């Protein structure tokens, strides 16, 4: 049973990661930075609970705000320029975060042992959940409360003017400008919202894996982050969730047949998927078809 709870936690956290990229992708900006914000959220939340004895929910919320703040700062220079620059800038930022934590030590003594992040060795003993008697089932539920809240928020956003404005900018920047939309403001806002969601995801992640290190937040994770919404299609949030289940499901199954080679499978899967369905699994046409199917039945 623990195995399934673990899988549910993983899917939940990866859904948050994917949703953080979804918001930015709506504006047609490809961001490889979400893993970086995720990592920042992880370290911030873990440091708050382990080093400053924070309770879990405030720690995660602060992690979210940390992600949002950094995303805003990174966004400003990177979003004023062509979209392809953003890919480069966010890749560089992601590496920067990874290297930063590789070099980051901050330990304090708790009783007899030293706790806190220790450079390349990472941050061990993030034991808030076990120390407070949470079962794996409790944690899984906790993760999904956040996921559902954020999905609901994004679903609402998609129906509001914010959602339409994000998509308008994503669709045609020249036209968006001509109807009075401030491109930089819209794109930076999307980035900031994404940073918040990623920070929350990271904060949760740190606590259920209990041990984080810089190599967790690498290009592979950044790829997962954008693969989910791209594969799932950008017309609504459920596509991303579907993609997470699909990809993680395949990878978990792939583990059985291919063992350590499953990342190979992941790379090949992406190439294949892009050739076969460039607009994602649940693109607008698929959604229209689904709508028609359901309204008839």
């Amino acid at each position, binding site marked *: 049973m623990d195995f399934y709870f673990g899988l549910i936690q993983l899917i939940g956290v990866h859904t948050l990661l994917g949703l953080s990229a979804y918001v930015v*992708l709506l504006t*047609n900006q*490809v961001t490889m930075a979400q893993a970086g914000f995720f990592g920042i959220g992880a370290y911030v939340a873990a440091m708050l609970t382990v080093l400053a004895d924070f309770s879990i929910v405030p720690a995660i919320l602060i992690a979210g705000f940390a992600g949002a703040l950094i995303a805003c700062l*990174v966004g*400003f*220079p*990177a979003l*004023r*320029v*062509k*979209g*392809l*620059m953003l*890919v*480069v*800038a966010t*890749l*560089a*930022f992601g*590496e*920067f975060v990874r*290297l*930063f934590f*590789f*070099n980051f030590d901050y330990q304090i003594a708790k009783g007899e042992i030293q706790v806190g992040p220790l450079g390349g060795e990472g941050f061990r003993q993030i034991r808030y959940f076990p120390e407070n008697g949470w079962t794996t089932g409790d944690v899984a539920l906790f993760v999904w409360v956040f996921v559902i809240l954020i999905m609901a928020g994004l679903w609402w956003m998609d129906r509001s003017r914010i959602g339409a404005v994000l998509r308008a900018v994503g669709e045609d920047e020249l036209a968006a400008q001509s109807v009075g939309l401030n491109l930089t403001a819209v794109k930076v806002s999307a980035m900031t919202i994404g940073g918040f969601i990623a920070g929350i995801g990271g904060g949760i992640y740190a606590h259920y894996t209990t041990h984080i290190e810089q190599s967790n937040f*690498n*290009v*592979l994770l950044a*790829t997962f982050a*954008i*693969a989910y919404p*791209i594969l799932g299609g950008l017309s609504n949030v459920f596509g991303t969730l579907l993609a997470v289940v699909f990809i993680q499901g395949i990878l978990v199954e792939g583990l059985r047949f291919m063992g*350590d*080679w499953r*990342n*190979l499978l*992941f*790379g*090949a*899967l*992406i*190439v294949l998927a*892009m*050739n076969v369905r*460039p*607009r994602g699994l649940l693109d607008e046409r698929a959604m229209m078809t689904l709508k028609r199917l359901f309204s008839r039945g």
Partner: protein
Amino acid sequence: MDDFLLELIYVVQSIVDGILFGTTYALIGIGFTLIFGVMHKLNLAYGAVSIGGAYASLMIFHLVPSPIVAYLASAVATGAFGYLVYLCCFRFLPLSNPLAPLMATVGAFLFIDEVIVHATNGMPEPYPSVFDEMIFFGEFGLRSDLLFVFAIGLISMLVLMYVLYRTRLGLAVRAVSQQPVAAELCGMSQERTNAITFVITGALGGVAGAMIGASVGVLSPLLVAPITIKGLIVTVIGGLGSIPGAIIAGLAVGAFENLFQYFRGVTERDMYVMLLLFLFLTFRPGGIFSSSIGRD
């Protein structure tokens, strides 16, 4: 006073070393920028195929223990891998959707990275180099292996210039990059030209990969991501689509990187290179020269 002079010499030394090694970054930057100029897309798998080609050349090296042969093999192998990337990530994808090919190249990047890791069990493999000694002018030392890298890099760039500006092939590449539709109407197949561009840049990347292996002494899968990112940084700083920009930026990034390493050590050095990029994006987002190939 003597200490200060010595310090100065070491600083200049690291700058010079950096510039010499920076030719590899310049070559990778040129590769990225050339593909961008012709297809208006980034090929994120480019760094991976370059290192992959160098690995492939190691297999040739075990058969024919001549470093020069290995370097050539690396160029050929990467050219072939480049063509494969073109087939898998660009050829059949709708050109109007920029997201899909980008994503596909990321997939290819991960795929190649994993193949390398598994083929070598994650262990670094020694790579042959040609010269080893240091040439000394008093206290000032010049690394002859880096001089060799610089020379090879220079020759590669000259060959590229010749191909681009003195052959019909190069003319086709430049024509397609400026006006793809018109070029097609004049009988130049866009597909063929794109494929050829991938092969040419592949050859360039293979040389870069080999030179990186030669100067570092080993090849390691850990090289793939940093080389990709630094190559992209060079492309952006130089200006997307500008070959001279990539060359200057490559040498500059090499120099700065080594300088950072001298003052702050190797684990922190890359962080500052990233910051350099952000500095550029904030103050000079067009890069040193903005697009000279490729116009809309």
